């Protein structure tokens, strides 16, 4: 009896310790090889991401409440507001708002350079982007052609004037770093940016109906 009791106690202690240590090991396996500095950047990204998700949750909760209230016209108002917001996101309407303009004068920059620039701005919180009067959203083809860099089928010769709407503080930080790096590139003659209380983007993306995709 006493031997069985001791055996049971030892088993319980071992079980608890093993579960705790294995759960720790699982987390570490997914982050194997990631150094502390990279983890710190990941934490920063995740904090910002979680803040955005909280904001989205709050907005969706408000919309759900408005729709559930049964008030006359609530559904039409929510749908109209959402249609406007989605058209802005998809680049289908002209938009305005605070932001920055970036001007890059260079020769020899490629489509890959343009893709990196646009991605950096998007990652920095850009909500609408236009390059030399050509509206850009993720999904618009940015390709290398014989004449240079083409955005949605239109060749854009330098200098590239990029208008961006979004959080001015974040965009300023991104543009500052971006233009510093560009000025260190021998192909770049000049790279400057300016924060503005209002940027107007009048260009739109051409609508393309789906040919292959079907809603599930």
């Amino acid at each position, binding site marked *: 009896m006493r031997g069985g009791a001791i055996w049971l106690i030892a088993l319980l202690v071992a079980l608890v310790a093993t579960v705790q240590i294995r759960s720790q090991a699982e987390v570490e396996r997914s982050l194997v090889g990631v150094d502390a500095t990279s983890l710190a950047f990941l934490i920063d990204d995740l904090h910002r991401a979680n803040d955005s998700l909280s904001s989205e949750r709050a907005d969706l909760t408000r919309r759900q409440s408005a729709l559930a209230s049964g008030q006359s016209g609530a559904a039409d108002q929510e749908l109209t507001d959402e249609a406007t917001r989605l058209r802005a996101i998809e680049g289908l309407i002209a938009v305005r708002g605070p932001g920055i303009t970036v001007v890059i004068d260079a020769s020899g920059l490629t489509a890959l350079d343009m893709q990196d620039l646009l991605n950096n701005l998007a990652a920095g919180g850009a909500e609408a982007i236009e390059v030399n009067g050509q509206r850009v959203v*993720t999904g618009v083809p940015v390709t290398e052609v014989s004449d240079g860099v083409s955005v949605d089928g239109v060749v854009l010769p330098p200098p590239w004037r990029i208008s961006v709407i979004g959080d001015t503080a974040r965009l300023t930080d991104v543009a500052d770093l971006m233009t510093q790096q560009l000025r260190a590139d021998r192909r770049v003659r000049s790279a400057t940016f300016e924060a503005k209380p209002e940027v107007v*983007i009048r260009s739109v993306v051409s609508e393309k109906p789906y040919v*292959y995709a079907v809603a599930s």
Partner: protein
Amino acid sequence: MLRRQLASLAIVALVALATGFVLADQVRSQLLTPSNQVARYQALVRSVQELEAANADSRRQIAQLRSAIDALESAAAARSSTTQALRGQVADLRGHAGLVAMHGPGVVVVLRNGVAGPGPGGASAYLVNYQDVQDVVHLLYSEGAEGIAVNGRRLTPLSAFGGTEGQIVIDQGPPLSSPITVAAVGDRNRMSDALADPQQLADIRAREVQFQLDLAFTGRPDVQLPAYDSSLQVPHVSPA
């Protein structure tokens, strides 16, 4: 007597269980000192774990809320032709924004880490990075992709890529690492031809040779893409 023995045994077992928890917790959260590099690293890993859990929970709630809103709008549309028409417009816009699951013919691309080696950047050049994913995505879009998802995360018109080393962050998602699966719906022959073209994806091709980075793809008659499950807010934008 037997009952007393069993009660004693139960008490001792509970104490042992509690001791196990306390012991494990002490080992995990020992006092951090500047010289305690391992413990500091462990603390960073725990922070990432907690933030990832919160991130996943938020995205689940967002998906549930969107589903609930869709149901309420459907009920409202059944009562009004104006609402019905508006809902039709929004449904199309939601589709193009990535807020609706879709399927169709397409391709699936898988990127895997290679093997670390000597030479410039050998310490990390064998890892799939966010620029690799960006390059593949851009190629697919330029060849007519109508929708793309990366490791089950749908892309939107505002999507952006980031990350360091072999960790890839897309929008507000948790970090992703190899293997990375890029699924695209569109003209599967056109996309497949582009992926097979040795002139495309030059950096990936070079690292395939030097570090055995691996890019494989297949054309499929039906590729499923989930709906986007994160934030799609543009608080600084208004119609001009």
